[in-house]
């Protein structure tokens, strides 16, 4: 059999090279996304704007305030003894938290009575609010246990230093500084590859239908699978260049560790690219318009791989039904593989279930494509 894939692929490469804007776009987009997500969207919350109303103005309350000020999690922007007009700070978004130290703060504490500290939190961003609440609670707890300790000491109770008796010594593995960029770079690779692979493959075929050249191709001895493979092969390599770029920027600029085997990373990526291009191909059998193909690609790949893959939102905290759907998203498995390779240095021994799942999806998608391609031409 004469090889028709090579002339088809060569022609496709010419198309890509003749359209440098699209080419640069597809190379720059992953890096722009990476930089956007890596810098702008960080889940590490620090420097929360804070206001304190100190109605007590005692040495104890000032002691407390100085501890808050000393923490890098809070920026104390306003301090006052009166509460008038303070709600406006929350309304206008100048602070996220207002802490009210009540009048009898030091008196109640020195008498050994309970004392309530009021917290007003801006809950419009529930994520920040929760984190802020967590930090404040920790701070207040530490402060109260100090007071208790001092009390006990002053009463002469024989207690060893180092109380409270249970001391947590956390040691975070794989991402010791809890940097969210380490978590995001693998996610970006998955999302970008899925989206770009499906868009480029659905567009390249829709374009041939739109210009009428597909009809010309079908009238030649080239078979549908040769046309498909020949057209997709160059985009497959383009996908690899994109992955390489993201890995380079991620490891060099953002210092994301790459602890696992690069070869395994590329093999997994190849299978995942087949899934992405295949989804694009399926879309191109539904519509022959470039515009619709573009929108469907975004709909079927960007949103699911963003929201349901575990890229940003943890799957374990999703409702049961939604969790079920995440099993249908190839990006879900690829993300586990990527994070495993990047952060944990995992290999095939640990990641075989996800690799198998990806292989399964790739073959189902390829079979579906072969079937739909035959039907669409009749």
């Amino acid at each position, binding site marked *: 059999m004469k090889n028709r894939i*090579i002339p088809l692929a060569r*022609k496709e490469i*010419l198309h890509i090279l003749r*359209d440098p804007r699209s080419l640069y776009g597809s190379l720059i987009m992953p890096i722009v996304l990476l930089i956007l997500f890596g810098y702008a969207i960080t889940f590490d919350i620090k420097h929360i704007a804070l206001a304190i109303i100190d109605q007590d103005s005692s040495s104890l309350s000032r002691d407390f305030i100085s501890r808050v000020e000393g923490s890098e999690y809070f920026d104390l922007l306003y301090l006052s003894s009166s509460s008038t007009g303070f709600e406006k700070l929350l309304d206008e978004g100048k602070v996220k938290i207002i802490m009210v130290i009540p009048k009898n703060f030091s008196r109640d504490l020195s008498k050994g009575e309970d004392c309530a500290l009021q917290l007003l939190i801006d809950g419009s961003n529930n994520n920040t609010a929760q984190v802020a609440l967590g930090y404040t609670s920790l701070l207040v707890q530490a402060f109260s246990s100090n007071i208790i300790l001092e009390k006990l000491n002053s009463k002469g109770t024989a207690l060893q230093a180092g109380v409270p008796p249970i001391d947590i010594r956390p040691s975070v593995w794989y991402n010791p500084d809890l940097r969210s960029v380490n978590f995001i770079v693998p996610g970006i690779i998955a999302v970008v590859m899925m989206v770009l692979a499906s868009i480029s493959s659905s567009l390249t075929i829709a374009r041939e239908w739109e210009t009428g050249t597909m009809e010309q191709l079908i009238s030649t*001895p080239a078979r549908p699978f040769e046309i498909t493979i020949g057209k997709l092969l160059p985009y497959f390599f383009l996908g690899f260049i994109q992955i390489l770029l993201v890995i380079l920027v991620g490891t060099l600029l953002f210092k994301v560790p790459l602890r696992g085997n690069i070869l395994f990373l590329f093999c997994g990526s190849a299978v995942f690219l087949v899934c992405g291009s295949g989804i694009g191909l399926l879309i191109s059998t539904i519509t022959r318009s470039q515009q619709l193909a573009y929108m469907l690609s975004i709909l079927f790949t960007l949103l699911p791989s963003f929201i349901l893959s575990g890229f940003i939102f943890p799957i374990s905290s999703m409702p049961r039904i939604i969790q079920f759907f995440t099993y249908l998203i190839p990006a879900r498995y690829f993300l586990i593989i990527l994070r495993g390779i990047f952060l944990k240095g995992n290999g095939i021994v640990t990641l075989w279930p996800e690799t198998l799942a990806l292989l399964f999806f790739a073959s189902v998608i390829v079979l579906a494509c072969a079937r739909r391609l035959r039907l669409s031409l009749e």
Partner: protein
Amino acid sequence: MHFWPLSRSRERMDSIEVQSLSKTFGRFTAVDHISFRVKKGEIFGFLGPNGAGKSTTIRMLCGIIRPTSGEGSVGGFSITAQADEIKKIIGYMSQRFTLYQDLTVEENVDFHGGIHGLSPSSAKERKEWVLRMAGLEGREHSLTRELSGGWKQRLSLGCAILHRPQILFLDEPTASVDPVSRRDFWDLIYQLSEEGTTVFVTSHYMDEVERCHRLAIIYSGKIIADGSPKELKREFTGKEESTLEDVFLSAIKKEKSDEK
């Protein structure tokens, strides 16, 4: 499934043979039980108004779409069962300009040579021939989108006959081409026919269909007349000096009155 007896068509040297061929799209019947034969080396004109079913017929014969019913053979191969074989021996030039506009003249020609599996030496020889035929020598490296209408059309034809097809299908090849280019084009068609290539050409230009050896008039999916231009004139207007336009109009008139 009923197969058209292929051996018989070979004996008669018929290049194209169609029996009761139909194509429906949903409830719309584009081609309605048409039958005709085209001999080897013949220039066969397919005449009809827009939407009559000309392109649909060509696309069925080229194996691009499947007929709803009926059977036909092209070069001795069944259009329903052996479309892959047919594609190796035909050339097809569709109504739309289907070369790649962002590729150069040479790249388009090379692509067609590659996809038809020409050997490097014959690809080179044919490429030189096509560039000479199309008058594009020296413009090999121009982008195709920069060519004017007549050049584009000759380049399309060149790509369609690059692999020396036995049967050539041309769907309204001279639409949007100036008269001089059209005359050159038809000279080339005659030359191909003399070399033994069968040419199946659709058109709605009466003056150019006049130059076909035989023609069929298709109207709302049905063939309402066929024969040589002379025969048709005799049959429909009674005089040989009348134009094909008269034939066309009176054939349609007759068809309409028959329907009532």
